[in-house]
Structure formats: structure tokens, C-alpha cells
């Protein structure tokens, strides 16, 4: 897999007449060993793409649910090295579900972007999304990553100007992540800002599939967004289930259940 095949995956899913279900999990929460099982249960319950959150000490774009998940993960030994190991193990178990590493820049920068790129390919990562690297600074990631075939996933926000949205195309994105609201992850969902029209504008300007995320929690939210977007991202709602579960087995069951429910609700 790679950035290019991830893009192809969106294309194939669109041909099935549906939107992609993209799930977000924080790596290492509740423990690094549990992450592989959680990924497996999400893949088996119908997730099309998995965003694996790399725990960071200072998650300034995340709401309290994911902040706490990251803290638990860091306490349990999660982080970038551990996340790469999680992906490797998941691939070793034979799963091909595309994986996007989702996180903040510092762990990658400190590791060295080129070293990260080489290790990420080897582990089986398809693309990278860094919330604190806007398109203005994205070249320093895009160039080394595209050399090894790893895609970048740029963010577009309700506040993004047409000029900024147009620039996204030059990064040949695997897909574009439309942040549904001005806010942090896990905020209340009141429909994506600008809705179908906004998503259409982004699709046209970037020529890439558009997934919508931030705040989407229920089958009802997901089905509404799936009616016009190429993908729907659900994160905090799953993370909350994992936090509420007792033991890894129950966490897998509970998260998998929500995954299946979302997937069913997104049938067109």
C-alpha cells in the first residue's frame, strides 16, 4: 500500500456507491499490546481506513477525550516508535486496511523526517496527517515522504480561504481531511460547516477525495455526512468507548460494535 493506493481505495469505495468509514484510535491506549487487537477489531467490523493517532505530550488540537487517551497511552509506553511497531504487527497478522498515522510534528521532526519515512514504509504505513503542519510548511514533509510513496493528508477547515484550498492540490493528497467545525476533536456535532456545498467545492478545487471529521459520533451523524462526502471520520466516540470498557477484550467488542453500527448507517 501507499498514498497512491489509498487514493485508489477511495475510488473503489465510491464505485460501491458508498462513503469510506475512517476510524481514529489513539495508539497505546490503553496499552501498546492492545492497539493491535483494537486495529484488528476495527478492520473486521468494516472500517475502510484507520487513522492511528500517535500519542503526543501536547495535543493542542485535541479535545479532552483524546487528550486523556494520549496521556494514558504515554503512561503505558505509547509513542512514535511504539506506533510503528503496532502497524508492523497489524500487517504481520495479514491485514491490508490502509493506515494513516495521525499526530503532531515534533515526534517526527525529532526522529528525522527521512528516517521516519523509511521506517514508516517498512512498517506498512500508507499516509501521514500532521495537525500542526499546515500547507505553508508541508513541503518539508511532503518531499521526503513522497520519495518513498507515503502520502500526505492535508487539512482544510471552515476558515480556509479559496486560495489556500487551491494550494492543497499540489501535494497530490491521498485524500483531504475537512475539519467539520472550528474547534477541537470531540466537540458537539451540529452538521459539518458549509455541508455538501463546502465539500463539493473542496473536491473540485483539490481533485481529491474529501473525508469529513471532528465531532461525528453517531450513526445518524455519519449517515448524514456520508450522503455527500467521500469519507466519514469517527474518533472521540470510539476512544470514549475504549476508555469506558473493562479490559481489552471488552474494548475491542465495544469499539467494533460502534464500527459496525456506523458502517451500517452509512449504507446509501
Amino acid at each position, binding site marked *: 500500500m501507499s498514498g497512491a493506493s489509498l487514493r485508489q481505495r477511495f475510488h473503489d469505495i465510491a464505485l460501491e456507491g458508498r462513503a469510506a468509514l475512517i476510524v481514529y484510535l489513539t495508539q497505546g491506549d490503553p496499552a501498546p499490546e492492545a492497539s493491535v487487537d483494537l486495529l484488528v477489531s476495527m478492520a473486521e467490523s468494516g472500517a475502510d481506513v484507520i487513522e492511528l493517532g500517535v500519542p*503526543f*505530550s*501536547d*495535543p*493542542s*488540537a485535541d*479535545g479532552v477525550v483524546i*487528550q486523556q487517551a494520549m*496521556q494514558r497511552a*504515554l503512561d503505558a509506553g505509547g*509513542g*512514535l*516508535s511504539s506506533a510503528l511497531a503496532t502497524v508492523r504487527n497489524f500487517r504481520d497478522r495479514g491485514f491490508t486496511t490502509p493506515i494513516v498515522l495521525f499526530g*503532531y*510534528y*515534533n*515526534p*517526527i*521532526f*525529532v*526522529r528525522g523526517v527521512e528516517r521516519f519515512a523509511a521506517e514508516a514504509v517498512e512498517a506498512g504505513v500508507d499516509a501521514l496527517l500532521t*495537525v*500542526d*503542519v*499546515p*500547507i*505553508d*510548511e508541508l513541503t518539508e514533509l511532503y518531499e521526503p515522504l513522497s520519495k518513498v510513496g507515503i502520502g500526505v493528508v*492535508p*487539512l*482544510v*477547515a*471552515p*476558515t*480556509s*480561504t479559496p486560495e*489556500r484550498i487551491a494550494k492543497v492540490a499540489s501535494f497530490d493528497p491521498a485524500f483531504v481531511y475537512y*475539519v467539520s467545525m*472550528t*474547534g*477541537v476533536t470531540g*466537540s458537539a456535532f451540529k452538521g459539518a460547516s458549509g455541508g455538501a456545498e463546502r465539500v463539493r467545492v473542496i473536491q473540485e478545487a483539490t481533485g481529491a477525495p474529501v473525508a469529513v471529521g471532528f465531532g461525528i459520533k453517531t450513526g445518524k451523524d455519519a449517515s448524514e455526512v456520508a450522503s455527500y462526502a467521500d469519507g466519514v471520520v469517527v474518533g472521540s466516540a470510539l476512544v470514549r468507548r475504549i476508555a469506558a470498557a473493562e479490559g481489552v477484550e471488552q474494548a475491542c467488542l465495544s469499539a467494533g460494535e460502534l464500527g459496525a453500527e456506523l458502517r451500517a448507517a452509512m449504507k446509501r
Partner: protein
Amino acid sequence: MSPATQNGRFGIFGGQYVAETLMPAVEELRCAWEKLDGDEEFHRDLNALLDEYVGRPSRLTLASRLSEALGAKIYLKREDLNHTGAHKINNCLGQALLAKRMGKKRLIAETGAGQHGVATATVAALLQMPCRIYMGAEDVQRQALNVFRMKLLGAEVEPVYAGSNTLKDAMNEALRDWVTNVEDTYYLIGSVAGPHPYPEMVREFQAVIGKETREQILEKEGRLPDALVACVGGGSNAAGMFAPFEADSDVRFFGVEASGDGIDTDRHAATLTKGRVGVLHGSKSYLLCSDEGQITEAHSISAGLDYPGVGPEHSYWKDSGRATYLHRCDAEALDGLEMLARHEGIICALETAHAVAGLAEVVDVIGAGAIVVLCLSGRGDKDMMTVASARGVEL
């Protein structure tokens, strides 16, 4: 104004590493900031407030006993005499006036020691803008007096329970507020940190320190000083003091960081001395973090220096050799505070005390008889509980 920046960069440092949602707001700020250059009315308004409200120019006091003790001619740039008791107000007035011009309705800020929070709450009251201050829960405890001052001024103080419950976490929470209320809210950053244009803008609003010093020392001594000394947390009082002398290569710059329990322990805040290059809170700069890129907690007796990052221009000055960065631990800072109190009758802030404690080394490096200006960034009232408890005194 002469921005040393190229596209918001100081060499490899700086940049705009923030969420896309914030980028349009950061760009809006950059445009508004750049337009101020020729805006006479803005500068007239700001200067009038600096004069009549803050009490500028701040005095340049010759520290005679200290000079005698250390063997150099030491002047103190008295930012402690400003309204609210520190240099922070210079920046707050500038940014708050700019926020008004931009049509923003609400101010938010992070604070560590509470000095920047108090200064922000002060200008918010002056300009009648609602204001919310984010402060790490641990700092709320350590700086109870400043919390009370902020509330008295009408600000909301929001304790932050996350990470290490200190300044960096307050900054994360302020960023979360900004991203949520980006349309009408102005984020008033308190140091030369954050995404471009903040480091350049805050430096320029603080450059009044160095510009006045230049005039005052020329008047008193007929020549420029040999060295400038300032404490470095985020680095705003130091940058404001240093920047107007940047082209004067004979004027040496010394920044003093906090080494907490000691530079060889893992409890310190000496970002430039012990850190590595990374990305945090909008810019690329030196910071304290693990091999895995996780930010590590900083430690200092002085809440205002207790930050694991530093402004990008200081990283640039360090790597280019333009400035030299020293460090002083908690115990040395306490001694510095006492030394200044006993020799000159001035009780400075614990932040400033680090710079005072660095003076002897500076004199050692540049030679006896030199002229040295110390940026006396703030007064010590806020720290009396901390100093008393460090000295084993119960108040």
C-alpha cells in the same frame, strides 16, 4: 521596524506550525501587523499609553554598590517600575490595541507566573474587552496573589489540568480556545514564541526597552554598553533589550536561563543550553523533549521561566553566536535576589534574579571596568511567598 525575519523565519527557526483552522487567523494577524508599520495614529495611541499609563520611559539606574562589588559599571533598566510591575505590559498594550483595530471582541492569553495574565487583564479592563486567562493548575497554586489580581481586574481565570499543569499546558488550552472561537477572539501571546508573526511582533513591542536604553546610556556614558544581560523564559524581555543593538557588534548579549535544581539534573528549564531543535506551539526552536519527541516538563523556582521552549530568534542568536546563554539554578537565583535587595534596595522578580545571578560571570567574560546593562524585568512582590518558603520562613 526592521524585521530580521524572512517569511517568518530566523534562519531555520520560527515558521507557522499551527492547525489549518488557525492559519487564516494567523495570516490576518500578519497582514494587520505589517500594516502597522506606517500607521502613525496607532503609534501615537500606543506611545501615549506607554507614557501616561505605563509610566515610560522606564529609568536607567546606576547600581553603584553592585558595580563596586562586581568590578564593572552596572546599570539597571527598570521595567519593574512599569505599571503592573514588569515588562509584560509593553507587549500587552501593543497587541490589545492591534486586536481592537482588527475588530476582535475578546482577548485570551496564557500565563505562567501570572505577570502576563495580570498585564493582559489590565489592558482588557482599560480597553473594555472581555478576557480569559489560561493558567496551569500548579501555577494557580503557586501564584495565588496574581490570580486574585486578575480576577479583581475582571478577567476569567481558567485553571488548566493537563500534562504538567504549567505554562505549556496553559498555552495548549489557549490554542484550543482560539481554534474554537477564531472569528472574534484575539490570542495575546506573552512572549516571543508562537507562530509568525508573534515572535517578531512581540519583540518589536518590547524593543522599547532596548531603544530607551540606547538613548539613556548614550546620554549618561556617551557610548554604548559592552554587554546586555537579561533572563530568558520565552525570551521577550531579552529580545526587546537586545534587538535594537543587533547591528552593534561590540555590544555583547547574555541571556540567562533557569537551571532549576541544577543543570546536570533533569529538573531544569535551560532550553537553549540543554535542549534540541523541535517544533512546539507554532514554531521551530530549541526545546526540551525526549528522544521520542515528547515534550519534557521544565522546572524552575520561577514560574515565568518554567517553560520547555524558547522564542525562535534566541535559537538563531545562539547558533549564530550573536548571543551567549548562561544558566543559573534556583539557589543561585535566590542569592541573586538577595544580593540586589541588600546592595541596591530593589527586590526583583525571581525571573530577573537569574539574570542578576549571572552578572558575575558576564563581568568575568567581558572584563572588569566594562559597562553592563541588566534588564530588570520585574519586581518581586509576587514571589515573596515562594522566597519565604524557600528560605524556610513561614508568613
